[in-house]
């Protein structure tokens, strides 16, 4: 009768696990509490079926286990029972589906007075853009993407000049105001996922997707990428800070406009460093190395050179320009402690290597 006891234990254990488990939905921080309510309703209905069917199975096995002299009944069907079961199940299904679709109907259409924010996903970082004073985004296209114009904004489009750019991982939003999030990517599929907000959507290059929500709790929330986008997928992090409206307005006002970033880029840098930056983009180094201090698949370049570091083979050494050159030429010779040994060998001429190392050294 081990099977019977096991089934009963499974039901009891599963219920206990559910009640005692510390793992549940993140505390909700948006207006989509109705999704949580739908989830709870689904849990209730499916939970009842789970318990009844499994305990019914256990009871049936117990009662009708083989005993000598006992013979099975002959009841090959029962049309009336079948009909009731179909009707009952259909009603249960409808009870689940109808409210779910009502909630979804709201999800599909954003409020017309929503604040609009654009999220740009790329391998493997997030950037954001707000429409600026004119309330309109500048047109974008993948062919305009360059090291000085990572968003790919069309410089000939007047509405783009005042767009407010948030190139780092942290974006702010005002409390209690609906926000319509426009999602774009210039490379591959991503998914902008902040679990406490519940609402989310995939990002599809070549199109603009969107979803909407209203932040209802202040706080700092982690952004995840939830659509496998390559080796850096698990490390594509960001933050959304929800704050009171006046604080948000001050934060927003302090962002650079697109026009300002263009002129800042023009007010140039050492051409060697500039070409090193272009190489870092072009050869894909930025996929794993950041310049803002955040560690990714590889160590950040900010302040990297000049440190003494340990390697996985136990040795330690000063990370100077020549160590950097050596490492780029032969990445698997040794690996920094705490990082995976995945750096590919990138083809670079000596002149390119000089430029790249100059760029790395310039990140203080």
């Amino acid at each position, binding site marked *: 009768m081990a099977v019977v006891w096991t089934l009963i234990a499974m039901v009891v254990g599963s219920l206990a696990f559910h009640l005692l488990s510390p793992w549940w939905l993140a505390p909700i921080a948006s207006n989509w509490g109705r999704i949580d309510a739908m989830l709870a309703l689904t849990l209730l209905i499916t939970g009842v079926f789970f318990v009844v069917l499994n305990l019914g199975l256990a009871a049936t096995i117990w009662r009708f286990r083989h005993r000598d002299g006992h013979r099975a009944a002959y009841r090959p069907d029962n049309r009336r029972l079948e009909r009731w079961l*179909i009707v009952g199940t259909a009603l249960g299904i409808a009870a689940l589906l109808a409210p779910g679709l009502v909630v979804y109907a709201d999800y599909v259409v954003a409020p017309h007075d929503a604040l609009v924010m654009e999220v740009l996903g790329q391998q493997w970082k997030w950037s954001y853009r707000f429409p600026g004073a004119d309330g309109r985004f500048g047109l974008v296209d993948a062919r305009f993407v360059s090291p000085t114009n990572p968003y790919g904004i069309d410089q000939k489009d007047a509405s783009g000049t005042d767009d407010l750019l948030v190139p780092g991982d942290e974006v702010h939003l005002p409390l209690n105001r609906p926000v319509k999030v426009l999602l774009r990517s210039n490379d591959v599929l991503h998914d902008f996922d902040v679990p406490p907000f519940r609402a989310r959507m995939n990002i599809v290059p070549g199109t603009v997707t969107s979803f909407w929500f209203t932040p209802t709790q202040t706080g700092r929330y982690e952004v995840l990428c939830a659509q496998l986008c390559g*080796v850096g*997928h698990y490390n594509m992090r960001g933050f959304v800070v929800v704050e009171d409206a006046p604080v948000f307005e001050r934060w927003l006002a302090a962002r650079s406009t697109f026009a300002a970033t263009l002129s800042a880029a023009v007010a140039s840098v050492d051409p060697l460093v500039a070409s090193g930056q272009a190489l870092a983009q072009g*050869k894909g180094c930025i996929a794993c190395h950041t310049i803002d201090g955040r560690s990714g698949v590889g160590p950040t370049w900010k302040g990297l050179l000049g440190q003494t570091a340990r390697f996985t083979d136990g040795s330690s050494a000063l990370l100077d320009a020549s160590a950097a050159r050596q490492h780029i030429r032969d990445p698997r010779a040794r690996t920094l402690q705490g990082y995976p040994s995945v750096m590919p060998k990138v083809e670079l001429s000596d002149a390119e290597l000089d430029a790249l190392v100059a760029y790395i050294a310039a990140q203080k």
Partner: protein
Amino acid sequence: MAEALDHTPAHPIAPETAHAATHGFLTRYVWSQDHKVIAVQYSCIAIFTGLVGLVLSDLMRLQLGFPGVFEFINAERYYQLVTMHGMIMVIYLLTALFLGGFGNYLIPLMVGARDMAFPYLNMLSVWVFLVAVIVLMASFFVPGGPTGAGWTLYPPQVILPGTPGHDWGIVLMLVSLAIFIIATTMGGLNYVTTVLQLRCEGMTLMRMPLSVWGIFTATILALLAFPALFVSAVMLMLDKLLGSSFFMPALVSMGQARAYQGGSPLLFQHLFWFFGHPEVYIIALPAFGVVSDLISVHARKAIFGYRMMVWAILAIGVLSFVVWAHHMFISGMNLAFGFFFATTTLIIAIPTAIKVYNWLLTLWRGDIHLSVPMLFALAFISTFIIGGLTGLFLGNVSVDIPLSGTYFVVAHFHMVMAVAPILVVFGGIYHWYPKVTGRMLNDTLGQLHFWITFLGTYLIYFPMHYLGMLGMPRRYYAYAGYEFIPPSAQALNAFITVVALIVGVAQLLFVVNLVWSLFRGAPAGPNPWRAASLEWQTPQTPPVHLNWGERLPVVHRWAYAYSVPGAAQDYIAQNAPPQAGGDEPEQGTLRQERGS
């Protein structure tokens, strides 16, 4: 008296010894056109591939449970493990085993045929399948290794830098899939034609066992759904090799502008899931059919509501073609589609639920023998209940929004597509092994295998749902540094890994049992389970070439004449004389007249 329709090939029916004398080892066991040999070949290749997939999953779990400890599992390799594990298990294990393994063995025997309709094509199909497996495995050895884009192979990332295997690995994967689809089509033509054309006298469609209905319907699904995978694979290959832009929009990859433009990644997803959803029913429907037969035989009771079970299989098959975009609710597709697909998805739950009720009602008032096959069948019911119920969360579009792409999905599809059908695979093999080999599988090993597998898989996948509720995304190499994930979640991951390793190793018990029992298993006799269906009534066990000896069987009743009141035994074979009774509950248009 009407002649039994006999599609015997031109040569005379040779008894086993004569057959052995005239055909060498290669003809009988390698290039065999006998469906039974082909079935064993399919099964061996599929099970071997499945064991590879199992090892890959244990390597994945090592990284998830003990992140960073096993340095050779870096991010690149991790994603390659994820991808190959998924593709191997879904396509090369489950589809090949249910259709090529179970289908090939059971269909001719259960419908009273001598072999499949096109034996030469059948033989070719298993070798083409082997080629597909070899090409797939070759992707481990090419520069860059296998593709690491997930078994769903989504463009644009799959063929762009940043994803492992974007050069050679994906090409080999797509070539392997195309070859597999050709093999499946060759096999599928056989299974469908055999069921339609080669049923023996008296074997109407509504007298076929549910195993045949499940495999038959799944085969039709395969024939109609795999073309969608073929279309998407060909187009993706052209995008990769010839620079077309079927799926590739204008993009900048790793700082480099690419020459693609105008393509639609969503087009790939629609095509892929138009295949991908029926694919899960290609796996589930044979499982439904087989488990119905296991329950019926081992509870000595006719399957409850046979007609309804057939209709449910057919309804699920048809409906499976109109639910695909529930895999795409938050893909960025037109949001209005969500209403339609949520509705169809919840509708498909109804015939599925009917099947669950009917299995329970079959057991009710039965005579339940807790043999190893029955244990696996019961475990199927329990795990399928939870796997199916969690599908209701994901099918209801608004609830899917926070759960999509999390471990909730991983737990759901493993429970309903991996655990439940694999339990049926095991149950089916324990059940039919005596017919295939003439020997019983060892019962003690079987019980041990059962308990570890059943308890272990439940302990792996039940808690996993909660990690999904928490919001833990799937396909993450590591979770370090995310504040919303508590350390206890990492502890749970470690626990799941340990259980997964134990369950993985325990499958060796099954493999050992298969081999050991071949030589030392107790002799089984022709019908150790006292089953009524036709495959147990062959003149020889194991059945010889051409199965039935001089004359084909004639069938007089359905396959579920168990515990018929007034009958001498608690079962009446399908081909027992009509006087023995045990008629099916409904007479169709073909009425049987007693007496002459």
